[in-house]
């Protein structure tokens, strides 16, 4: 089965985010007041082939741990969606 995967890479809570802070400071100059807690991350999308959703998820989790994130400063949220369903 093929699965569409989206990995959102985020800075861990408590890790300073210089990009987010700069964006947050810039917003009021454009008239957008009252915005707080801006955090910048990355979105990585791909398609993975696997026997079922559980094994796709475990493979993607491994990818995140070993490569897609730096666990010292980042964590990730994974969304998986089947592209083709098995015929009943």
């Amino acid at each position: 089965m093929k699965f569409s995967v989206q990995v959102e890479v985020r800075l861990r809570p408590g890790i300073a985010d210089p990009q987010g802070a700069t964006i947050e400071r810039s917003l009021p100059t454009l008239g957008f007041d009252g915005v707080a807690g801006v955090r910048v991350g990355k979105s990585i999308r791909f398609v993975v082939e696997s026997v079922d959703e559980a094994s796709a998820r475990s493979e993607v989790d491994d990818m995140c741990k070993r490569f897609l994130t730096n666990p010292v400063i980042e964590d990730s949220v994974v969304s998986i969606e089947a592209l083709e369903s098995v015929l009943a």
Partner: protein
Amino acid sequence: MTVRIGVVLFPGSNCEMDAMEAVRSLGGAAEILWHGDAVLNGVDGIIVPGGFAHGDYLRPGAIARFSPIMGAVGAFAADGGPVVGICNGFQVLTEAGLLPGALQKNAGLKFRCAPALLRVATTDSCLTRAATLGAELQIPINHFEGNYTCSPETLAELQRDDRIVLRYVENPNGSIDDIAGVCNEGRNVVGLMPHPERAVSKLLGSDDGVPLLRSLLETASALSV
């Protein structure tokens, strides 16, 4: 015998010639170690130089750490061999897990390219054994992601075990505890953001990098006997 330093070359490294020239100016021999080869040619010490290995894609050092050469560098370090990562090389060593912590984008999102004043925080490392504790050294910095970050537990460990090697006198990038360089538990692996190889002659504005690189050469030489 002349001490031999290997300088790792990744696609996108750009300080390897400066590093080799600096080693030679101090009487050492220097050679390139290609990232695609898993061999170290029997060198006595290793420099992982600055630049933008693999374009810094994903994260600086994230792809370089999987190069065939890095397995050999890790084994060399585990055997006590001296390894120094400069700038992008520091980022590669943290990604490879040879050094703790991570390098984040500079506070204020400024690319910093300027001489920086550093203070020697320990002389118990392969990069500072020939330096003077507390000495102030003027060494250039040239980076966007040099903001050293680690967990509070790791920071406490680094402080307790005297593993912070160099500190900025004036913090240019937001690094925790003004950290410019750290070492591993064995004190034979050091990473630093500033470029000592660019400060080996008064003609370059400073020769304060000499005691640092001399330390590396001395450590490598002692181990090669």
